């Protein structure tokens, strides 16, 4: 649905942040963009949103290049939205409900529809109980959920999440993963940038590695994460499931539950064999 063609972006100060990027978000339902700090992940997202305009190359949405007129972008941003890394910079109201409703009201939904959509997305993100609380009383993880709820409420086809788990505790991270899976199950395309390799390996089915503004590798999670030299070069690490596969010769599993199941079956077998 969304593709980039030789996308090139240079900031005004001459920093070349993206070099001839070709990505195709149709290759997976949950796409991961991984890369160290300054690799260009956020810049790529801002280009995909039409906020930054490529210096060269183009972005294709439904087989046509996106345009930069106000009316086109208004339409476009109802179908694709972005959750920024820092929740404080995208929450404008101190009332959770009003903030989640903000984009819907901008688009012009009736107040009844707004109410329904907002309540649904608050429930989906698990913050319905705190909707009356002032935002500055919330924890970082809760604010992050408010930001995500604001985007979910818009019911976009494509949702970009810039480092959704940065700074979250394990429970919150699991929670976010659950929300993302639910959205993907509803048929939405999800794109996640992150340098949390375990998270990406767990949740994504197609992964791009970005290094200094260039795509240096792409493929399914297994393909990408087995390439240790490239990961090292990019300052990234292998997920632990891939590591134990490489180092201990255990088969490669996508989820830790699969490993535990395999392990207990293996051990059950060997204890059978030891029986006289």
């Amino acid at each position, binding site marked *: 649905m969304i593709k980039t063609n030789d996308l090139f972006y240079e900031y005004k100060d001459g920093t070349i942040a993206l070099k001839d990027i070709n990505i195709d978000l149709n290759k997976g339902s949950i796409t991961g963009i991984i890369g160290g700090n300054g690799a260009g992940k956020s810049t790529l997202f*801002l280009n995909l*949103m039409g*906020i930054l305009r490529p210096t060269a190359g183009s972005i294709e949405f439904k087989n046509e290049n996106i345009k930069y007129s106000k009316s086109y972008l*208004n339409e476009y*941003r*109802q179908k694709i*939205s*972005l959750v*920024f890394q*820092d929740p*404080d*910079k*995208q*929450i*404008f*109201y*101190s*009332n959770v409900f*009003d903030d989640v*409703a*903000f*984009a819907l*009201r*901008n*688009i012009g939904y009736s107040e009844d529809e707004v109410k329904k959509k907002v309540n649904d997305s608050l429930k989906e993100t698990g913050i319905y109980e705190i909707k*009356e*609380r*002032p*935002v*500055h*009383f919330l924890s970082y993880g809760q604010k992050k959920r408010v930001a995500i709820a*604001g985007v979910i409420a818009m019911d976009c086809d494509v949702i970009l999440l810039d480092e959704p788990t940065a700074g979250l505790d394990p429970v919150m991270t699991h929670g976010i993963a659950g929300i993302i899976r639910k959205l993907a199950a509803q048929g939405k395309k999800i794109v996640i940038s992150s340098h949390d390799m375990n998270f990406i390996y767990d949740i994504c089915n197609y992964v791009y590695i970005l290094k200094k503004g260039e795509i240096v590798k792409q493929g399914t999670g297994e393909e990408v994460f087995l390439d240790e030299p490239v990961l090292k070069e990019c300052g990234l690490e292998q997920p632990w499931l891939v590591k134990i596969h490489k180092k201990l010769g255990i088969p490669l599993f996508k989820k830790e539950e699969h490993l535990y199941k395999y392990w207990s079956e293996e051990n059950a077998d060997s204890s059978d064999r030891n029986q006289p």
Partner: protein
Amino acid sequence: MLQIDIYANSNRLSTRNPYIKGLWAGAGLLIAIMTSNVYVHMAITVLAALAVVLMAGIKFTAYLKLFRIPASFLLLSIATILVSVSPARGDFLVSVKLLGFYFGISDGSLNMAMMLLTRSLACLSATYFISLTIPLNQIILILKKIRTPRSVIEMTVLMYRFISVFIEEFSDMQNALEMKSGYRNFKTSYRSVSILAGTLFLRVMNSYKDWKTALEVKNYNGNFYV
């Protein structure tokens, strides 16, 4: 986070009907401004204190502390009203002669000062009653009810939100400076304050840019819905 804001959101009156609270406070303010009767002013002051302490359940000492800063301004201005200067002793109740002039307190200035003092206290009490028992979300409801212009309400919402962001950023930086011995002595304090001001300014400008981007993503069209 502002202490006053914590009170507003977490006391026994927080969730009560905002219009009734607003009506009480508004009536108190109006009466205090319109009458010059010292006893009415005192009554309002005492009633507000009783409401805040007994009904809302805010500690009396905490409430008193809130008056510290305004009280210093108040006393200074009252003192200047109280004392007048004249070349003759005239109708001064008490006076001192200094450099050929009489500095003293007259009957009129005494009454005036007394009235202003009690009126200020009454107005202050009514205002504190509002800020301590009506959280912002309810204040917005009241503002809408009395048909405040939309743009004023929009600004109120945005300012309130960004004051808390600003304070958080300020106190984080303040702590960091303190941790790095930024306030060890007069000289380093001087430098730390300048660093703080400069950095805060830069951060505000950067935040402004980020917020603009976030607004664009949410299809902002110039209207803040409140």
